């Protein structure tokens, strides 16, 4: 995505084109992803009009038809999508078909929890993985390196929901393994409830960050410019930070962007394991009860977050690497 955009920027030149082309592209990604989900929802057997109109065989086809018309479900699908997306852009996600509430209302609290979980998992992973990769790259082949690589391989192999169950069994009685505590109950309680879910969700991601950064570091530590820095006695701490890690970080940023979606998706599973009232349960309920507006809004939010994170990574790329930054000018 980045390379394509840079090429275009080079050809067209002006500074204005790039952000513009970027946002057009990202808007297209959001539109395409939500449209696909829109279609998929309608392929699932089961008619929401029939479910809503009343239980069992007591409703007449006329009643079902009337409900369908009221919901706008008899419009052509493209028109339905258009009505939905134009409302959504204005912040109106419609009403839940099943629950007696607006979708925005339903989503607000749960989204916060899912976002919190994802951010904590991300932070935990980065805080664990980056220092470990430094240690491992420095003492390549030593015990610390081998142990962290073994842990890494395990982290990739173990799915997050299974790890969640394992953590629940192991930490039973030590840490809260059930439910959510909002920040208003105190930071300690809040983080205490989030620690295990964040760990379960972040483990696989941490492994990817660790392996990518470690490989990058091994590469940059044997680079000519690190040799130059050493030939001039630049302190090792500065070599690791400014010379090796800064250059090794570029592929890691790509991983951050690519994994943002996986992290959100994983959050939905982990939430269920720890009974966190996040978006995960909302989506599952929505799919089961054919609650189109709820599912669509959830997907829209996830896609927007994914696109936003990738946009942020593109910007960070430019901050970290002057070759990206200056080739735009």
């Amino acid at each position, binding site marked *: 995505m980045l390379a394509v955009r840079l090429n275009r920027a080079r050809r067209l030149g002006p500074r204005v084109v790039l952000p513009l082309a970027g946002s057009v592209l990202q808007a297209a990604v959001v539109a395409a992803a939500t449209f696909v989900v829109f279609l998929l929802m309608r392929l699932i057997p089961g008619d929401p009009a029939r479910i809503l109109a009343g239980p069992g065989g007591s409703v007449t086809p006329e009643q079902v038809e009337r409900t369908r018309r009221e919901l706008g479900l008899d419009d052509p699908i493209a028109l339905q999508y258009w009505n939905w997306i134009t409302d959504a852009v204005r912040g109106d996600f419609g009403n839940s078909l099943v629950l007696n509430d607006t979708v925005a209302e339903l989503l607000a609290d749960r989204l916060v929890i899912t976002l919190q979980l994802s951010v904590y998992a991300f932070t935990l992973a980065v805080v664990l993985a980056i220092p470990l990769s430094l240690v491992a790259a420095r003492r390549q082949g030593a015990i610390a390196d081998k142990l962290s690589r073994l842990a890494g391989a395990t982290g990739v192999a173990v799915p997050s929901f299974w790890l969640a169950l394992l953590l629940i069994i192991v930490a039973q009685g030590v840490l809260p393994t059930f439910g959510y505590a909002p920040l208003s109950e105190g930071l300690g309680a809040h983080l205490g409830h989030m620690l295990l879910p964040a760990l379960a969700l972040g483990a696989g991601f941490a492994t990817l960050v660790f392996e990518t950064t470690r490989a990058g570091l091994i590469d940059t530590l*044997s*680079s*000519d*410019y690190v*040799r*130059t*820095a*050493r*030939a*001039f*006695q*630049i*302190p090792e701490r*500065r070599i690791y930070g*400014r*010379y090796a890690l*800064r*250059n090794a970080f570029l592929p890691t940023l790509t991983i951050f962007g690519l994994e943002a979606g996986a992290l959100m998706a994983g959050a939905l599973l982990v939430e269920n394991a720890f009974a966190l009232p996040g978006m995960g349960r909302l989506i599952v309920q929505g799919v089961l009860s054919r609650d189109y507006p709820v599912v669509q809004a959830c997907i829209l939010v996830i896609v927007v977050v994914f696109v936003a994170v990738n946009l942020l990574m593109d910007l960070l790329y430019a901050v*970290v*690497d*002057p*070759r990206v930054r*200056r080739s735009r000018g």
Partner: protein
Amino acid sequence: MTETPTTPMTETPPADPLLALDRVEIGLAADPQVRAVDGLDLRVAPGEAVALVGESGSGKSVTAYAALGLLAPALRASGTLRLGASSYDLGDPGALRPLRGGEISMIFQDPGTSLNPVMTVGRQLEDVLRRHGGPPRRERWRRVVDLLAEVGVAAPDRVARAYPFELSGGMRQRVLIAMALSCEPRLLIADEPTTALDTTVQAQIMDLLMTLVRDRGMAMLFISHDLGLVAGSCRRMYVMYAGRVVESGPVADVLRRPRHPYTKALVGCRPTADRRLARLPSIPGTVPPIGSMPSGCRFAPRCPIAVEQCRTADPELRAVGGNVSVACLRASEEES
């Protein structure tokens, strides 16, 4: 390259050298018997420009890295390095660390990859200055710009703010030379500093190096495979083959009358304008890979004048007069 006799330099191996490398051996850490350099002695006098010459794989660059304790982890060195009155064990890279920059500065073969791509060259120069007792923080940038001007950068202000990828190869090498100068070293090791550059830029960089060496009385160990550059810049030379010095002496004498068949072949490979050749001459065969050195003389398998004895007896480096030393059994016989 014009012949420019520069500093007052001796043509004899110095009795009181600035740098002395003794019995240098560089081998694989895993198997020290597999050696890239095998028993090298080398002297550089204060202010002297000395060349270390040989094909790729002859061990000249690793020798330089070993002198600064910068060998790759897979390699291990032994031997001693004397600098002035102090003596250092080459097997202990940490002990050599204090020499880097301040005593011995090094510039590298590939200026394209030798600078950090994500820092401006000015910031990298500042890093070096801070480490080597440069001016206080507020005056440091001024000093960076001055240094760049000193190495012939036309717009030093602008170049200091540039990233390496925004500069040409020649400009990057000037930046690295400025880096080396900022430490005011007693010895500059130049590891094929112009190999990666265009011919015209090559001449400019060589001129710059020679001017700096002359003006500052700095000694230089010039590593190259280009005999033309060596002839124009150095007074003494060492010729390396397969990890050993096979011939050493004053550049003019060695090049005019090479005694070792390998040196002869090297000199014979230089294309000249007055000799029109159907094809460029080359030395048949290749340098033996380390780990499978032939017994006896290492050049014997490629040598046009080798005799049976060459394949069994390992020739010692011996003086053959005129300050030239040669490691060849047949050298003197051929002479007469």
